[in-house]
C-alpha cells in the first residue's frame, strides 16, 4: 500500500498545504511518495525529502510543468500510478491548485474522487462535509485507487525530520493543449488567508470598497491579520474574489476570526465556523453570525472598529 501525494509548490518552496496533505496520508498507513513536478524546482524536491515520514520524492522537472497546468500534470500522475501496482491512494490538498488538477487525475484513473476529506477512518472510509458543511457524509470508496482531496484545516501539518530518497522522474511529452499567458498576482504585505492565525473579514455592512479597506486595514495591521470577505462583499465589488471565505471560496480555521459587518449566511459560516475564537461586530443583534460568535459586539462598525484599533 503506497500513497502518492501531489505536492503544491511555487517552484521555490513547498506550500504549507502539502504538509497538511502528508499528515492526512499518514493516517492511511503505508508508504508515502511525494511528487514534485515543476520547472527548476530541485529545492522543492529537497524540502519534500526532509518532511517527516516521506519515503520517496519523485522529482519531475521540465519547462512544461513550471506553470502546473492540469493537462500535463494529470498525465504525469496517471502514468506514474499505472507504472507501479503498489499505489493505492492519490492525494492532493483541496486548494485552488488541487481542486483544478485532482479530478482530472481521478478520471484518467477511472476513479471517483472523494473531495474535501476532513477525517480518515480507515484506508477506504472517509468523512467529508457537503451542503456547505450542513451535513457530514461517511463514505466508503470501492475504487482500486482511491483519490482524495484533503481539507487542509482538518489536519495539522507534519514537521521536518525525514530523509527520503529523491528519484528523478522522466518528463512526459508536452501535450500542448494549454499555455500560461500571464499571471496577475497581488503581492500581499499580509499573511496569506489560508495560513493566517488571525483573520479580519468584512461583509456587505462595509458599504463600499474604499470603506472596506479604510476600516479593516488598520485593524488587520494592528493584529498582524489576513483580510477576508464574505461572498456578499465580493459580489458587491468591495473585495477581490480571492478574499472570499465560505462554501464557494476559501475554508479557514484561524485562532481568531473577526467578522465585521457580516450577517452570517450559511455559505459564509461553512468557511469559518471551525475557527478557534470568533468575534462578530454587527449593528443587527439578530444577525445569525452571533449564533456562532464567542464574543459578539452589537454596534455601528464604523464607530466600533476604530475604537477597537485604538484599544489594542
Amino acid at each position, binding site marked *: 500500500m503506497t500513497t502518492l501525494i501531489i505536492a503544491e509548490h511555487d517552484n521555490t518552496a513547498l506550500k504549507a498545504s502539502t504538509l497538511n496533505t502528508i499528515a492526512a496520508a499518514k493516517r492511511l498507513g503505508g508508504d508515502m511518495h511525494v511528487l514534485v513536478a515543476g520547472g527548476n524546482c530541485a529545492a522543492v524536491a529537497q524540502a519534500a525529502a526532509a518532511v517527516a515520514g516521506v519515503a520517496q520524492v519523485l522529482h519531475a522537472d521540465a519547462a512544461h510543468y513550471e*506553470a502546473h*497546468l*492540469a*493537462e500535463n500534470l*494529470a498525465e504525469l500522475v496517471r502514468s506514474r500510478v499505472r507504472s507501479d501496482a503498489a499505489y493505492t491512494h492519490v492525494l492532493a490538498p483541496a486548494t*485552488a491548485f488541487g*481542486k*483544478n488538477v485532482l*479530478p*482530472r*487525475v*481521478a*478520471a484518467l484513473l477511472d*476513479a*471517483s*474522487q472523494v473531495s474535501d476529506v476532513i477525517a480518515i477512518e480507515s484506508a477506504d*472510509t472517509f468523512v467529508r*462535509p*457537503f*451542503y456547505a*458543511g*450542513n*451535513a*457530514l457524509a*461517511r*463514505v*466508503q470508496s470501492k*475504487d482500486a485507487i482511491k483519490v482524495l482531496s484533503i481539507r487542509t484545516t482538518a489536519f495539522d501539518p507534519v514537521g521536518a525530520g525525514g530523509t527520503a530518497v529523491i528519484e528523478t522522474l522522466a518528463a512526459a511529452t508536452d501535450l*500542448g*493543449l*494549454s*499555455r500560461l*499567458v*500571464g*499571471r496577475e*498576482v*497581488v503581492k500581499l504585505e499580509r499573511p*496569506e488567508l*489560508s495560513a493566517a492565525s488571525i483573520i479580519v473579514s468584512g461583509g456587505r455592512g462595509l458599504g463600499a470598497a474604499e470603506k472596506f479597506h479604510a476600516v479593516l486595514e488598520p485593524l488587520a495591521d494592528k493584529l498582524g491579520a489576513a483580510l477576508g470577505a464574505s461572498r456578499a462583499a465580493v*459580489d458587491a465589488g468591495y473585495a*477581490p*474574489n*480571492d478574499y472570499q471565505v465560505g*462554501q*464557494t471560496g476559501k475554508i479557514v480555521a484561524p*485562532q*481568531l476570526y473577526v467578522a465585521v459587518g457580516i450577517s452570517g449566511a*450559511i*455559505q459564509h459560516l461553512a468557511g469559518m465556523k471551525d475557527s478557534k*475564537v470568533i*468575534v462578530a461586530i454587527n449593528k443587527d*443583534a439578530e444577525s445569525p453570525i*452571533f449564533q456562532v*460568535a*464567542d*464574543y*459578539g*459586539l452589537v454596534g455601528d462598525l464604523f464607530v466600533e472598529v476604530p475604537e*477597537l484599533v485604538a484599544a*489594542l
Partner: protein
Amino acid sequence: MKILVAVKRVLDYNVKARVKSDGSGVDLANQKLSMNPFDEIACEEAVRLREGGVASEVIAVSCGPSACQETLRSAMAIGADRGVLIETDVGLEPLAVAKLVSHVATKEGVQLVIFGKQAIDDDAGQAGQMFAALMGWPQATFASRVQIAGERAVVAREIDGGLETLELKLPAVITTDLRLNEPRYVTLPNIMKAKKKPLEMIKAADLGIDIAPRTVALGVSEPAVRKAGIKVADTAELVKRLKEEAKVI
C-alpha cells in the same frame, strides 16, 4: 460553433439542508429545487457568446431524474436553444456525469463545454475537470473572463492571490467562478418561449455507460453545532476578554 452547458438541479441556495433523522441523507422532500447557481453563470456565458456572434447554438444538458426537465427549461429561459436530459434514477457521482456528458458532447460535435465550478449540494467540484480528462481536452477552471479568438479560448481564472490567464486549444472545457458574469433576470415571455423549445430525452440505461456509484454512503450526520458565546458591552471588554480569557491576542 456549438456550446454545451451542463446544468444540475439542486436544493435551492436559500434553503438550509436538513439531515434526515435516520441518517440516510439530506431531506429533499417538499423542498424547493433550482438550478445550481454556478450553472446559471455557465448558461449566461454561453448565451452571451451566441449573442456576440461567437457561437451558433447553445445546448443545455442535465443528468438525473425526469424532474430535471424543469432545470433544462430554466436554462432555455436564460437563452439556451434546446435541452438534452439523460434520464436516470441512479444517484450519480461526478465521474458518471462526466461520462454521460461526454456522450452528448461527442454526438453533438461541440467545441466548448461550460460547467459550474461546483454544485452547491455535493460540493464535489469535479465534473468539469473529469469531463475534460475523458475527452482529452484542455481545461480552464474557476473562470472569471472568457474570450474566444479563432481556434483558441483565452480564459482568466481565479487563483490564490489573483488571476492567471490561460490559452486553450479548442475544443475545451471551462468551469465558472462567481465573477464571470451576472446571470440575467429571466422574463415571463422568455419562460413561455422556453416551454416550446426542443427537449430531447435519452435513457441513461440505453447508452451502455458504467454509471454505477463507486462509493458507498455509510451515513449522513449533522456537524457539531457551535454554541453562541456572549455579547460584550464595548470594545474595552472585547479586548480584555480576547487577551485574558481566550488568550488569542
